[in-house]
Structures are given as C-alpha cells and as structure tokens.
C-alpha cells in the first residue's frame, strides 16, 4: 500500500478525534506499526507534507515498530523468526504462516491542544464547527495536490 494512503487515513482519523474532543490542534500522534507494513520510513517522510493545512500540521509523529512473531504449529509456541520477514520457526524449521504480531497499523494515542480563547467563548454549535472543518480539509486537499 502506498504510504500516502496510510498517511491520509491516519491524519483524517486523528483530525476526526480532535474535532470530537473540541481541540483545535493535534500536537503529537503515537502510532504502532508492524514490521510487515514496511511503512516506518515512508510514513515519516510523507507525513509532514500530507498533514499541511490540517489539524495535524506540525504534529510530532511517534512510531513504535512491532517485530514479527509467528506461531509454530509444531512447537506450539510463539517464536521470533531469525530474519525480519521469515516465516519459518527458528527452532524446528517448520513453516509458520500464522502471524501473531507484525501486521499492526494502529493509531495509539493523540496529544490534543485547545487554545485558551476557547474557555471564554460560547461552545461552537456542532454544525457550524463541522462546516468550518470541512472547509479546512478541502483546502488541505487542494494544497496537498
């Protein structure tokens, strides 16, 4: 999968949660990526440009990479293969198609920020807020392209 698709999905998910919490900025995004995704470096590189113009602009992206572990049907145990993408048991050599960890693509946590001005303002009605946010996303869409 292309990293830009992953980045856009991630940013959109983060922005949705931020809006739901009434925040106007995402300061930090924590993500868990399994090694099989192959997305660690690509995501780092394209996240910044993809986030421009959204609530995630300038957010710090933290990625925890999860190694591959597999279940060996012969040993009946969870094993760590010898090499990063190997699907063989390191003990008995049996094929191990069942992946236990290494496929994850999870948004773990967000650090959100709301400006102090919000405390004194009447809370925005959800519809008006949503229209504004859509406008921001549309601008972001144009800017990204």
């Amino acid at each position, binding site marked *: *999968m*292309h990293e830009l698709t*992953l980045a*856009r*999905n*991630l940013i*959109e*998910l983060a922005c*949705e*949660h931020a*809006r*739901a*919490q*009434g*925040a106007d900025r995402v*300061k*930090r995004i924590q*993500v868990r990526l399994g090694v*099989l995704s192959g997305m660690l470096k690509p995501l780092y590189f394209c996240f910044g440009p993809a986030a421009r113009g959204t609530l995630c602009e300038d957010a710090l992206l933290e990625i925890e990479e999860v190694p591959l572990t597999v279940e060996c049907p012969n040993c009946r145990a969870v094993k760590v293969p010898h090499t990063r993408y190997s*699907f063989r048991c390191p003990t008995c050599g049996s*094929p191990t*198609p069942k992946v236990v960890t290494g496929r994850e*693509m*999870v*948004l*773990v*946590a*967000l*650090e*959100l*920020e*709301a*400006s*102090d001005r*919000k*405390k004194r303002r009447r809370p925005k009605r*959800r*519809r008006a*807020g*949503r229209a504004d*946010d*859509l406008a921001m*996303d*549309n601008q*972001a*869409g144009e800017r*990204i*392209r």
Partner: protein
Amino acid sequence: MCGVCGCGEAETAIGGHRHEHHDHGAAAPDGKTANPARRKAHSHAHDHGRLHQQRPLFGPGAVRSDLVTIEQGILSKNDGFAAENRARFAELGLLALNLVSSPGAGKTSLLVATIESLKREASIAVIEGDQATENDADRIRATGVPAIQINTGRGCHLDAHMVGHAFESLPLEAGGILFIENVGNLVCPAAFDLGEAHKVAILSVTEGEDKPIKYPDMFAAADLMILAKTDLLPHLDFDVAACIEAARRVNPGIEVIELSARTGEGMGEWITWIGRAAERVRTPGSQPAGAGASASALAKA
C-alpha cells in the same frame, strides 16, 4: 478530499462520472456521523477511544493539552464501510467475490467464461476496477450482464467505499452473485476489505511458482487460488505441485482449482465452488452443497 468519508473526489470515477460529494446525513452532536450501521461496525471492532483525562481540558484549572488513548486501526474507516457492504449483501443473500491477481493473469477472461456458464441460472452483476478505460466493463456487458467500471486514477486498489457506491447502481436480484474484479495488483488489495464473502486469487501458469510466498499477505487472505491458463502448460516449465505447496505454506487452508478459461478445462470445478459458496451465504451454518447441487443452488430467487 471528502471531509466526511475521505474519498479522493478528484481521482475516482464510478461508472464514468466523477464522484460527486454526497450527503452522509446530519452530524450527530458528538461530531461523529449519524450512520448507526457504521458506528456499530466501529464499536464492534474497536474500542472507539476513551478519554484518559485526569485534568479538565476547559474551565478553571484547565490545562491546554492532554494525551488521549485511541487504539483504533488506521484503516478502520474502510473496515466500517466494508462491514456495511457485507450487511447489505447478507440482507439480499448475495454472494460477493473479490477477484485479485497481478495484471494480465486472466481475471476478465475467466469472468466472461464464468458468466457464460452461469447467466441463465443466476442473477449476476460485476464491478470492474482499473486505473483507466472502460474496456473490462465493456467485455462483461457484451455477455448481457450489467457491469459498472470504477476508474481509480492513480489509485492502486478498490476500497469498500467505492464498491458501496458502485453497488447502488447495479440491478442485482436477491440471491444473485456480485463479482468484483479488483485492480491488477498483488500487494495493496490484500489490506482493503470490500465486504466480500471470499477473496479469490488468480495466478496464471505464465507467472512464477513462488508467487504465493513472494506475496504472502494476498495468498494468506484468499480462500481460493485459481491456477489459470493451464492450456499453456505444455509450453512452460511451470511446476504446479511446487506452486500449490507454496500457497499452502502461507495459507494451509487455501483451496486450489486448476483451469483454463479458453478450453473450459477445470471450469466445472470452479462453477461448483461458486455454487457451494452461494449456498453458504444464503444459509449461514449449512453444510457445503454436494457436487451435483451447484446448478439448483444458483437458481434465481
């Protein structure tokens, strides 16, 4: 990009028309969309995120930022759409099959041959996926069966949202079959559930026997591998047994059918497999139908 459902409006064309922005219904006060089916799909699959708040975000003593635990799959939006599709297919007793392969393996030719065998017995429709052109949808329509073409532009896979929209335009009867021919690509479609009952991976004998272990995600996600173009075997050094062994290494439970759409060899086994799959979809928990029951299992409702 659509701010609600995330579709890339500028890129995707469904049935020849640029994807218009659509109404997802009024937003609920909590900011989430009001589609209860999608929310249920999310809450069924994930914890929607709980606020671990020890200090207030607003009001006296407020701090300006806090860490919110989410623990949600990054592609969960597609999962939500896929769950909606799956529910709609189940309501109609439809068998939906997602055909995947590398470009040129023979998906469309196989579909055309399959439709010619089945069209008098079952209500069939096809969703085609390609970057550009209507060529494949045209070939399907020439058989007399409705087809809608999704052009993904720079996109490399179909997603559940596109399929949901395309499905709205298709005249499928209850108990029918929906074939979805994905974009030719053995990588990306593995990650995008469309709401199908089964992924069927088509591998032609002109490719390498080790394809299944080179593209493990796709073959692990498929319930059936079709080894296509078997009429060419006399001209090749393709090791069929090695290929089946490779597929079973990444997916011990995968079924395998060898066939040639051109000569008809093996097509009977494929039609029977479809009949059994259709029967299972219509009566969840039933035993698979026997070999002779496939035609009656596909009878129009």
